């Protein structure tokens, strides 16, 4: 089982992706989707020596919803910041965030989230993964920002990946 499906979640996602792209569940497409779902993870397995252990689907769903909302809110904030930039330049700053999350996949997910949400860009991670350097578009209160960041993103990711 594990040898045939080194990454079951990836297999299922690729299977779904193929069917969705083709908008069809005909026999031929089911076969191609199954081939993609089985072969792609097998061929990629040597490139991914570490296996991700994903848990807590409910936490994942909540996190995705949360990120979706945050994207909308920060879109509005950054848009306002851009339109007002002439009068009142945004208070951009680098923030050092101490991290407790160590799992490589969790950190990858965190870097995706911070970069997808406008207003924050992942800039650097310490070699021992203890500190993250984040660039923030408009920073009001550093301590409050760090607390919010750790509570909304880091803690759920630790529950999911660690």
């Amino acid at each position, binding site marked *: 089982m594990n040898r045939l499906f080194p990454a079951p979640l990836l297999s299922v996602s690729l299977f779904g992706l193929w069917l969705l792209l083709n908008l069809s569940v005909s026999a031929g497409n089911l076969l191609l989707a199954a081939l993609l779902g089985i072969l792609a993870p097998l061929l990629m397995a040597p490139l991914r020596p570490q296996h991700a252990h994903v848990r807590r689907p409910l936490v994942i769903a909540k996190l995705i919803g949360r990120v979706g909302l945050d994207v*909308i809110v920060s*879109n509005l904030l950054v*848009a306002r910041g*851009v339109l007002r930039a002439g009068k009142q330049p945004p208070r*951009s700053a*680098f923030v050092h965030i101490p991290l407790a999350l160590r799992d490589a996949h969790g950190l990858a997910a965190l870097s995706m989230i911070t970069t997808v949400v406008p207003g924050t860009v992942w800039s650097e991670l310490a070699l021992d993964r203890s500190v993250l350097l984040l*660039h923030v*578009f408009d920073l009001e209160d550093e301590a409050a920002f760090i607390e919010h960041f750790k509570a909304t993103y880091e803690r759920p990711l630790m529950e999911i990946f660690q």
Partner: protein
Amino acid sequence: MTETLALPFWLELVTAALLLIGSLFALIGAVGLLRLKDYFQRMHPPALASTLGAWCVALASIIYFSWLKEAPILHAWLIPILLSITVPVTTLLLARAALFRKRMSKEAVPEEVSSGGDRGH
């Protein structure tokens, strides 16, 4: 059968509004890229186009074609999903390259976070 070829007026309004909102955010993102001065500040506005801009356009497409074909035509939503996977790769590379170059030319950016465990400044 003919009434399925056209959208009802209220749905046309919804799709048009979504398209306009999406384009507006893409436009503001471009304006930000043009008007902001600092390199790192300018990394943020283009994210407007790849998030809310793309979301609104994809949603408009889903609503429009789902109504026309009388079935859920959801594959446009793959665009936002794939964008959110690929865009961070280039953004991260740009941020890392800019940090490296600015450190080499001794500009005011934070020191490397790995050195000695101290917080830089």
